[in-house]
């Protein structure tokens, strides 16, 4: 696919747009439809598209493997620690009212942070899933049942010898 | 000492002995000596406790709400504690002689579990409620298992499996069932004079509940649950003595008696007739075991079946449901204990001296081992029930009890059984003294003193018991 000019050009245009849209969905989530889950998936799809069009190696170059774990864990921690923030400030876990002097503003801030954590984790998970499964293709031969049967026969023949 | 302290003493001395056995495992004389010494002290303590008035009680801890580990010595329990406490030092002394004479291995392990078994027996004797009794009952089973399988060969393992299988399975399936059944119905498990079940249970269920106990207490070796007893004969003879006279089977029949007297209550059993069937089962057990005993030529096997038969007497004493018969049964625990331990001591002495186990090889042995054979003859007569030996009293009281409740047929059973006893025990004595040796008895001489001493003492005990009988009759009439 790397050789197809149309796809390459379209992808180059599309990828920034996809990412921008993801950011919109992410940060508009507390006003309208959207939020971390959707944004995370959209954001990840940009990287997946990149990898599909320009190859796995280039894709890895843009999003190195070590980002995966950091993204996943970081997102969870942002979520959790935002909740803990409410606890530290004297209210129950996940109470965002106290995050700012104005309760409403505090709730906005809290949900923004939480959604950001969700988005980060989801994006990282999605990219990781793609690379994990795609990276295995070299080893993976999906066998039909008859194929497996043949292998078994040859294996048992070998054993007999 | 107060009764509470005596209870503590009796329970802790065997444990102390077992701990010291481990501590002195590298100094055989010290290890064995202390066990005998502590045994003598415990015999004294048991005697003192026996003389103290009843009424003391001791609660060790509360397992669960309403379920305690507690100890209440009542006359029957005190008698059993006395039997076990007196026979323990003798058995230990004998064990030491036997183990050294027969060149058995693993003395330390053996003595350790021996003492633990005595601890469990004391717990059973003094237990104040069914739960405590059950706890120590199981402890006795598990602590005697290493003794039964002491030799460690395939035959011993197989016997061990039968031993453990029957005893644990029966106790978990039936006995525990009965215990919890009593708990669910009566709301308590305490041993109370006159029983706790009267009025709490539909008389219709009494025979069934009694069956749970009669067969759940596998240690009482009521046929058909007697298989473990002959199987355990592979064990060294001191174990047989422990099983037959001091601890295991005595604990079994003691439990049966105690349940009958203090859980069901003699009067309650008589009213409901719930134990009538048990009289006949016990009768069957008595006769069948006697007949099997006659077919055995292995000395220990014959003695084992004799025990099964004698245990039937005690179960029957409870089942007859009269105070007189129950007293006789209690007395028989002591009388048979003294008699049977002598017989096994003699069997072990013969084995150590002669290395033979078959009765046919023992012709003329009495003339080379006069002390052993005299003791054997005394004990055999006691078991048969010939005065002036202890067995006569207990048999007499059982017969009296049977008459009281009109079981004429039982009278016949007891008489026939005495006759059978005479045949199979008498044969051994007669062969020993009068038959001509089939092979040369060269080099055979009396067993070492550590064995002769205990066996003559227990034989004399049978004699003494006959004359001091007033001291040992327990009145269940109240």
């Amino acid at each position, binding site marked *: 696919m790397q050789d197809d000019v149309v796809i390459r050009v379209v992808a180059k245009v599309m990828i920034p747009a996809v990412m921008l849209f993801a950011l919109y969905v992410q940060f508009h989530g507390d006003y309208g439809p959207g939020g971390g889950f959707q944004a995370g998936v959209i954001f990840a799809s940009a990287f997946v598209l990149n990898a599909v069009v320009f190859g796995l190696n280039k894709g890895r170059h843009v999003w190195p493997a070590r980002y995966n774990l950091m993204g996943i864990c*970081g997102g*969870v921690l942002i979520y*959790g620690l935002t909740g*803990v923030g409410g606890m530290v400030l004297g209210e129950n*876990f996940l109470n965002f009212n106290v995050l700012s002097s104005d309760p409403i503003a505090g709730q906005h801030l809290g949900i923004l942070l939480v959604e950001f954590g969700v988005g980060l984790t989801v994006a990282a998970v999605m990219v990781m899933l793609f690379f994990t499964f795609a990276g295995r293709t070299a080893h993976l031969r999906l066998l039909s049942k008859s194929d497996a049967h043949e292998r078994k026969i040859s294996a048992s023949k070998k054993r007999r010898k | 000492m107060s009764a509470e302290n005596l209870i503590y003493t009796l329970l802790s001395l065997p444990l102390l002995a077992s701990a010291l056995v481990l501590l002195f495992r590298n100094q055989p004389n010290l290890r064995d000596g202390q066990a005998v010494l502590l045994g003598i002290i415990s015999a004294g303590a048991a005697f003192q406790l026996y003389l103290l008035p009843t009424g003391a009680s001791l609660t060790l*801890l509360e397992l669960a709400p309403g379920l305690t580990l507690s100890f209440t010595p009542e006359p029957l329990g005190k008698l059993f504690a006395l039997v076990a406490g007196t026979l323990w030092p003798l058995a230990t002394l004998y064990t030491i002689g036997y183990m050294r004479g027969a060149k058995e291995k693993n003395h330390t392990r053996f003595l350790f579990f021996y003492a633990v078994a005595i601890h469990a027996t004391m717990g059973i004797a003094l237990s104040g409620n069914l739960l405590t009794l059950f706890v120590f009952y199981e402890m006795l089973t598990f602590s005697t298992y290493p003794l039964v399988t002491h030799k460690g060969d395939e035959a011993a393992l197989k016997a061990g*499996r039968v031993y453990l*299988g029957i005893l644990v399975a029966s106790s978990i*399936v039936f006995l525990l069932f009965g215990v919890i059944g009593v708990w669910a119905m009566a709301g308590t498990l305490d041993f109370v004079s006159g029983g706790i079940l009267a009025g709490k249970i539909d008389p219709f269920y009494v025979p069934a509940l009694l069956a749970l106990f009669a067969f759940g207490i596998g240690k009482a070796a009521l046929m058909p649950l007697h298989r473990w007893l002959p199987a355990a004969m592979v064990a060294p003879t001191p174990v047989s003595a422990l099983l037959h006279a001091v601890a295991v089977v005595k604990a079994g029949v003691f439990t049966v008696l105690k349940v009958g007297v203090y859980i069901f209550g003699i009067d309650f059993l008589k009213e409901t007739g719930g134990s009538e069937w048990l009289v006949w089962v016990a009768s069957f057990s008595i006769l069948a075991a006697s007949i099997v005993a006659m077919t055995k030529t292995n000395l220990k096997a014959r003695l084992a079946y004799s025990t099964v038969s004698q245990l039937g007497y005690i179960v029957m004493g409870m089942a007859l449901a009269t105070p007189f018969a129950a007293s006789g049964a209690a007395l028989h625990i002591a009388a048979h204990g003294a008699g049977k331990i002598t017989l096994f001591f003699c069997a072990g002495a013969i084995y150590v001296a002669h290395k033979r186990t078959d009765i046919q090889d023992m012709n003329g042995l009495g003339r080379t081992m006069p002390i052993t054979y005299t003791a054997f003859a005394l004990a055999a007569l006691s078991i048969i029930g010939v005065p002036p030996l202890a067995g006569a009293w207990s048999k007499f009281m059982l017969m009296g009890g049977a008459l009281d409740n009109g079981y004429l047929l039982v009278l016949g059973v007891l008489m026939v059984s005495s006759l059978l006893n005479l045949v199979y025990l008498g044969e051994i004595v007669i062969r020993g003294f009068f038959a001509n040796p089939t092979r040369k008895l060269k080099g055979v001489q009396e067993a070492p003193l550590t064995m002769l001493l205990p066996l003559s003492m227990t034989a004399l005990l049978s004699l003494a018991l006959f004359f001091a009988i007033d001291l040992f009759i327990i009145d269940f009439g109240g």
Partner: protein
Amino acid sequence: MMQHLPILQVLLPLLASPFAALLRGRDVAWGLTFVTTGLAFLISIALFFQQRAIGETMIYELGNWAAPLGIVYVIDAASALVLPVISGIGFIATLAARQLVAAEIDARDHGLFYAAWLLTIAGMMGQVTTGDAFNIFVFLEISSLSAYALVAMGAGRDRRALPAAFNYLILGTVGATFYVIGLGLLYMLTGTLNLADLAERLPHVEETRAAFTAMAFIALGLFLKMALFPLHFWLVPAYAHAPSAVTALMASTATKVSVYVLIRLIFGVFGVEFPGLADAVGLLVLTLGIAGAFVGTLAAIVETDLKKLFAQSSIAQLGYMAIGIGAMSATGLAAAFLHLFNHALMKGALFLAIGMIAAQAGRATMGTIQGAGKQIPITMTAILFGGLALIGVPLTAGFISKLYLIRALLEQNFWLLAGLTFISSALALAYVWKIIEAAWLQPRPNGAPVLRETASQYIPAWIMVVATLGFGIYATPLVEAAFAAAHVFIPSVAGAN
């Protein structure tokens, strides 16, 4: 800080998990896990005593949103009893995991291993603590998903872990989905997912078929999760081929939590008076429980692989818990709680001890331990005591739970069932004794590898053994707590203790 304990209980392992994943050094990850589970254990003990002292339900509102709208965490007598089991086992298993994991799992995966480990624990805690039915599902899946991964990590030594984990995944997901279906029906009927609220609103719709169907789905899903016979086939391979530490953790906790959730839903939401409950679920659970007790015990008798053997025995023991539930009485529930607690202790001891042997010898079979009594006496003694507790020998914890289980059956006049229960528990003697004979009474075969034991290897197992004996000798507070837990669901009747 004290008022935050209910949430910290779940949050601590949950938030420690990503840290553990990020930490590459295996000792650091283990240290973090150790500290976290230790703290969680302390918290659960504090909660237990706090709850016992107050005597009533403690409620923690997430984000200060009150009950029907918000999600609440509930600490009542029942959850206060189950939490220490999970966190305690989690803590001891972590203590043992240091050696077991080092022996069985590739050093690069340790961070991820401990992350999944913490997530499993957090998920189980969450199921117990939360007062929201859907939240239970979420935590159920958190713990299950990480459990699948943990089981699969056994593949490094034993590739059979992979199909085992896969089957576990399929059946676990089916079970969880059944639960969600039932929940959906309940939500349609009542419009709420809060457990307390559900219990309040259900009586208005209890005559409908939908309510009954919901109950059937929920019960079925949880039967699968708790491996009630005949839905137990995933359990044995999963436990047998998982890394030893995971087996020890899961055998003592995973199915127990599902038992707890079942009790919570069936008794706490539907209630004993729910029409058809006693007939359908009660009778079914009783029958399956006793059948499971026999099947598990018999299968254990013929098994030679020790992990499989004790996994089969777990099926039997779960059967006993099911019998307690099926008795449909306060005593029965208390017996189920008691056995849940006690069985966790003894299986923990057994699997930790066996795990240490398996980590050394590669596998733990009857052949491996033949004559091992002389080489590793302390470890084998732990197995001996654990086995005795399984049989229900007096002065062990197993005796206490069996005592109350039978009492519950006799109170309901289930004499035959009580007899069957006794027979099956006596059969347990056969497989336990097989092990004891092999270990102590048979000689070590020539050429068998030399087994060793060090204090750090047997201490975790022995902590559990001591607890097993301790709760067998002095069970009064535990029994009281179990009855308090049972009375949460079935109000106390005068005269019962």
